[in-house]
């Protein structure tokens, strides 16, 4: 069976899930939902088919499982959002359309994605600029005290979602060139391998800029995602654990400093440590959200309460703040239980597996590093938000890729997916040719 036919077949489970999920939610909440709302489910299926056709035409050899897995995630998310708010589901479906346009555009414009290497500094600057955008007065729209959002007129978006891709592209392309010289020219000082400054310089600048941003964006979770991606690419490029150790130590020091000196971040850490403390629970931006998230998960148990059965609001009062974005995982755990939540994590794990598989299949260093970096930031984003929602780490306002409501997140992750499929298409074609 050809890769594309396998992909089409693998889309069947997602389509069943979206149909079943929509029906279940609709049946449970037929007194509040309108009949037409079932159309979003149909629209979603049409979009999946359209995306499949785009891939069939443009990237015939790309990994057959990546897209069906992403479709599964997106349908999980869409059903959950539909269950929370019919209007948001409509908007989310629209964002899927836009995301798909971005997906198609990326594939067409970057058919030769090696071209990205030529613009690496531009891309790096753009990435950093994007990250700094939320600090600009006039357009900044802080999310719970973290400088992650931007609002221009009616449009608000989170530039960090795009910036993570830019940084990965830069680091991957830079290290493709310099990884050899970095190792050859390296000296060993006190047991640590120190790369030559000349080649490490630009990286250090990016690294330093990102470290600086840790203070500016005031969000450890997002920073963790960036640093993790950066260090992962560095590690794969050089195979030197020592670089990673140094990076982790630097990050830990920075995080410690921020955690103890930036009030907003230390409040988040306090809320994480004592979510049920009366003072923190009632405080603005305190532990109410994480406490409610835990209650929702406890409510779900092993098998959950079923689609549309969990309590997320009472009248106009919302029990779960940001249920459709930050806390979507808590809603999933509530309605589908540990079984559904663990299933979702497994889907993410399979996406990561496909991503790393693409990286190992790729022939050239840039492709390998690019696939590795993109897969790592994607996985870390899942870890940061799910870890936050489950109280494994302090809660941060990032989205759960493809599942949470949010335009920037959908569009950026579709671009990320397109890049992975581009790498995959080339790698598998070259592998077939031998």
């Amino acid at each position, binding site marked *: 069976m050809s890769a594309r036919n396998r992909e089409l077949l693998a889309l069947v489970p997602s389509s069943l899930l979206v149909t079943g999920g929509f029906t279940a939610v609709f049946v449970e909440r037929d007194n509040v939902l309108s009949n037409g709302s079932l159309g979003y489910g149909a629209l979603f299926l049409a979009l999946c088919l359209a995306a499949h056709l785009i891939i069939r035409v443009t990237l015939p050899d790309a990994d057959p499982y990546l897209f069906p897995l992403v479709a599964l995630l997106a349908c999980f998310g869409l059903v959950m959002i539909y269950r929370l708010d019919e209007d948001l589901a409509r908007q989310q479906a629209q964002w899927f359309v836009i995301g798909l346009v971005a997906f198609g555009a990326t594939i067409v414009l970057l058919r030769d994605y090696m071209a990205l290497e030529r613009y690496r500094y531009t891309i790096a600057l753009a990435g950093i600029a994007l990250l700094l955008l939320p600090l600009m007065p006039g357009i900044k729209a802080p999310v719970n005290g973290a400088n992650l959002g931007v609002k221009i007129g009616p449009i608000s978006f989170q530039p960090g979602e795009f910036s993570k891709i830019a940084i990965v592209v830069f680091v991957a392309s830079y290290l493709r060139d310099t990884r050899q010289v970095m190792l050859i020219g390296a000296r060993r000082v006190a047991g640590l391998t120190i790369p030559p400054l000349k080649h490490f310089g630009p990286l250090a600048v990016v690294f330093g800029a990102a470290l600086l941003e840790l203070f500016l964006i005031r969000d450890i979770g997002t920073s963790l995602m960036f640093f993790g991606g950066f260090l992962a690419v560095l590690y*794969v490029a050089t195979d030197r654990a020592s670089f990673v150790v140094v990076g982790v130590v630097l990050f830990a020091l920075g995080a410690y400093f921020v955690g103890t000196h930036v009030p907003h971040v230390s409040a988040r850490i306090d809320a994480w440590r004592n979510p049920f403390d009366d003072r923190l629970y009632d405080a603005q931006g305190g532990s109410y959200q994480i406490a409610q998230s*835990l*209650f929702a998960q*406890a409510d779900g*148990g092993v098998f959950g309460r079923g689609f549309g059965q969990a309590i997320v609001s009472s009248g106009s009062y919302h029990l779960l703040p940001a249920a459709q974005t930050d806390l979507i995982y808590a809603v999933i755990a509530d309605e589908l239980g540990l079984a559904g939540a663990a299933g979702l994590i497994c889907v993410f794990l399979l996406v990561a597996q496909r991503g790393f598989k693409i990286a*190992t299949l790729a022939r050239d260093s840039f492709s390998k590093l690019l696939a590795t970096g993109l*897969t790592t930031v994607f996985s870390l984003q899942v*870890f940061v938000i799910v870890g936050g929602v489950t109280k494994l780490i302090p809660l941060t306002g990032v989205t759960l890729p493809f599942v949470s409501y949010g335009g920037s997140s959908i569009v950026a992750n579709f671009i990320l997916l397109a890049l992975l499929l581009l790498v995959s298409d080339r790698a598998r074609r070259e592998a077939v040719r031998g």
Partner: protein
Amino acid sequence: MNAPIRRLFGLVVLLMLALIFKTSWNTVFTAEALRDNPKNARDLLEQERIRRGRIRADDGTLLARSVKSGAETWRRSYTSAAKLFANPLGYAFVDPGRTGLEAAYNGELSGEDNGLRSILDELRGKRVVGDDLITTLDPAAQRLAESLLAGRPGAVVALDPSTGAVKVMAQYPSYDPQDAGDRKAFAALRRRSGAPLLDRATQGLYPPGSTFKVVTAIAALDSGRFTPQSRLSGKTGIPISGVPLDNDDGESYGSIDMDTALTHSVNTYWAQVAEQVGKPTLKRYMERLGFDRPVAVDLPRGERASSGVHTSSGAIRDPTSRYVDIGRVGIGQEKLLVTPLQMAMVASAVANGGVLMRPHMGAKIVDDDGRTVRTIEPEEIGRVMTRRTATEVREMMKHVVKEGTGTAAALEGIDVAGKTGTAQKDPSRNITQPWFIAFAPADHPRIAVAVTIENVKGGYGGTDAAPIAKRVMQELLK
């Protein structure tokens, strides 16, 4: 470069496993504690979505129902008849919660205990609704009892001795259960003097006075130590536990039998009986009657007080303790505190030939379509005394009403058996707590009652409580 990529994937696997582990921790391992966390309002909001069943009196009078309060939410609405039954009925609101029958029958009222039926309903696309509760409470008698209390704090309990079905559980002060659903009204209710939220019938603890002599009589006769003809001195001032005990108004009797001693409520006679019967025997009979543990009735545990000898801190003291003056316990003094329902149970055990039935207010559970789902069957607590003892005590109690202290309870054409009680609350100001327990018709009892009024100046059981018992019995025997 593939080896580090694989190691990196290994790290991602570990991170994802950590997420699954932490999710399991939250959803399963610590879920119980999270659900019980006082900050977790989920359970209450859940209840708001359920249409609770109705509650009705025994004649079908509607007491409580649920009305729509939003697109998907319901709210309790109490009828004006419910005000009569506020204390036993209780209330059910998200805030401040549930009490009374609303709490005791919550499983049925909320539909949680419907089990298979609710699953079937769900499959058929029907919303889960709670079942209705039909109670044994009698609105006419309840209204009468409340009016007879006439604004004096106290309680009237009446039940069917052969089944334990509670007909009347009236008290003053009471409240409007609807107020519990309003934050401000409820706060005012809690501040109001006289503790209107307290269910005096099951939680009010009062000195029983001479009504307790019935318990002493049961122990004395059933243990075989005494007969109704046993004679003892009824002189006033006989030392009990080394301290002279006086009869009411200092009246002295010569050598009298038990029947006379009960008819005229002679303290010294009964104190001697209690001393001779002894602590272990008295304790045994008290426990058979339901003392020393939360009073048996279908209300939540927190709304049922234990009758018995209390310590100064309010705990129950073992009647065999060496600190207990058994002679004075035997006449209803000495830190002996009882609930009105407990005293109605004493009367009902005698009335029912010695077998004590468990008092209950729930009669049956009816589903939304009107089918009876469950009938609450009469339940025996146990045999307290032999039929013969019961007959002997009954005969003595008949004399109390015929020619003794309780003549005010006499009904025309119907024999009444009863016992008065007048507990001293504040001797310096002559404040007493009048009591009357009774059952009728004496030979084939259909109703047993207990009446008490807190703090009456110069009050007597025979003059203040007995007339109320009479009218309530009359109403219930109609």
